[in-house]
């Protein structure tokens, strides 16, 4: 082989090896056994992050000057479900947020009743799983106090948010879930105001949840009901959320 031939051969060999590796990664991506191995990192990440950060450590809060111009709406931005449209038509007058599941005292609140409760206002950063960030000023009711009022039973492990929107018109209603630690975090609020105005439809009217130490897809919009459950296995795809059922991590702390 001449020098040039050898060079060409090495280039082609490197190209073929690269293609083989990439093809291999694609094949592994579709293999559930490989998926299990890759998934193991999620628990490791969650455990490490819980070890390295205090339980109730606060996410950074910002000033009015840092607020993004136009908080980018993402996911569902204008739900077309009939039940939701009916509420929009009456200005959410008949909206009731229901607390249920594994609680001793189920109850529900109208929007006015929710607004009348002690609130928390926070200017926080919203990080989308896609990579972009926006800062908004949120006002809402801390979820922890509402859970205390419902008297969560000892068996309950997760808080499930039931939503009015379908991201995929042929799919299930959006839902999300968090553990009780995040539910009781002081910055976890049921927000009804964004930047000093009622939450717009595109950002989740009338109520969305803020979970400031996780990514955007955890922060369900258009929340209708909040259920306490022992296990997520029997809800929809069993992974604890709409995007989780599509393969995204349940723990979205990174």
């Amino acid at each position, binding site marked *: 082989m001449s020098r040039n031939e050898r060079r060409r051969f090495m280039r082609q060999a490197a190209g073929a090896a690269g293609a083989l590796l990439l093809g291999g990664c694609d094949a592994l991506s579709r293999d559930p056994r490989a998926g299990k191995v890759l998934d*193991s990192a999620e628990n490791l990440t969650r455990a490490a992050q819980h070890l390295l950060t205090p339980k109730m*450590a606060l996410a950074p809060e910002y000033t009015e000057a840092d607020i993004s111009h136009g908080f980018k709406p993402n996911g569902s931005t204008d739900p077309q479900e009939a039940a939701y449209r009916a509420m929009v038509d009456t200005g959410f007058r008949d909206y009731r947020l229901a607390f249920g599941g594994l609680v001793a005292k189920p109850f529900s609140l109208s929007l006015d009743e929710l607004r009348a409760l002690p609130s928390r206002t926070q200017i926080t*950063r919203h*990080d989308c799983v896609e990579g972009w960030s926006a*800062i908004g000023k949120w006002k809402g009711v801390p979820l922890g106090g509402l859970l205390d009022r419902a008297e969560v039973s000892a068996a309950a492990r997760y808080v499930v948010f039931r939503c009015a929107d379908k991201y995929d018109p042929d799919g299930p209603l959006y839902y999300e879930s968090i553990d009780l630690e995040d539910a009781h975090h002081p910055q976890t609020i049921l927000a009804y105001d964004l930047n000093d105005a009622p939450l717009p439809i595109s950002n989740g009217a009338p109520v969305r949840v803020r979970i400031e*130490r996780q990514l955007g897809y955890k922060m369900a919009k258009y929340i209708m009901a909040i259920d306490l459950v022992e296990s997520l296995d029997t809800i929809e795809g069993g992974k604890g959320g709409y995007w989780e059922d599509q*393969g995204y991590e349940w723990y979205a*702390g*990174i």
Partner: protein
Amino acid sequence: MPDPNSSDTLADVRFRPDQSRTIYRHTLPIRLMHWINVLAMFVLLLSGLQIFNAHPALYWGNTSDFDRPVLALGAFQTPDGELRGQTTIVGHAFDTTGVLGASKVNGELQSRGFPTWLTIPGSQWLAMARRWHFFFAWLFVLNGLAYVGYSLIGPHFRRDLKPTRTDWRGIGRSIIDHALLRHPKGEAAARYNVLQKLAYLIVAFVLGPLIVLMGLAMSPRMATVLGWVLDLVGGRQSARTIHFIIAAFFVAFLLVHLFEVLVSGAANEIRSIVTGRFRIKVAKGDTDESK
């Protein structure tokens, strides 16, 4: 130079052909950690590009000012309906159709940040790319910690990586030698040269920890304790941009690293990182001079 294809000549016998001896250059742990790192970096770089593709733009500051990206890979339609890929770097646009912004997916030109042959997985699939990225990030971190521990506790750092006073004095000459592709011969080839030492030190002890730190600073949970890092670099989007830039430095290092392997005797270099054994040629001239 004697023609290697010719039969032994009198001259060869008289002056003796090049002498060579084999040294044990890389210990087993170093070789293992090197190859684990190759695997981890390969997956991290390409799954990273797939993650980037979910929102193919970089910003400076805490938030994304969508009108003012530092870097954006996008696509637009020309008046005659043709799709063009465009790379915008701080306001300057370049046509990069076919590679960046728009490239072929199953034979059809589509809007896409990086092309399918540079991403894991190939097709648009953010959830899966994140799984690959975070799994191999753990491998990269644990392997990196093992390397740093091994180097500092054992003799590797002190003996092989730390530049000596002679090294520092010869840095100018080393730069010229590298530029002219002149490589150390004989006994000098047994050691890392000063530029090589500095490159390894910067990559392993500066860029490695920094890219991990920037990755962690992007995590909303870790931001509860890494707020100072975000403040230092200007915000979360800055951290994301720096994470990307350091990855580009890694690619640059990789290219130079592979180039040096090729020009300084690929077979010998590759054997040394596989088996540990490295052959040093002691040229006739050298032996004569050293007498």
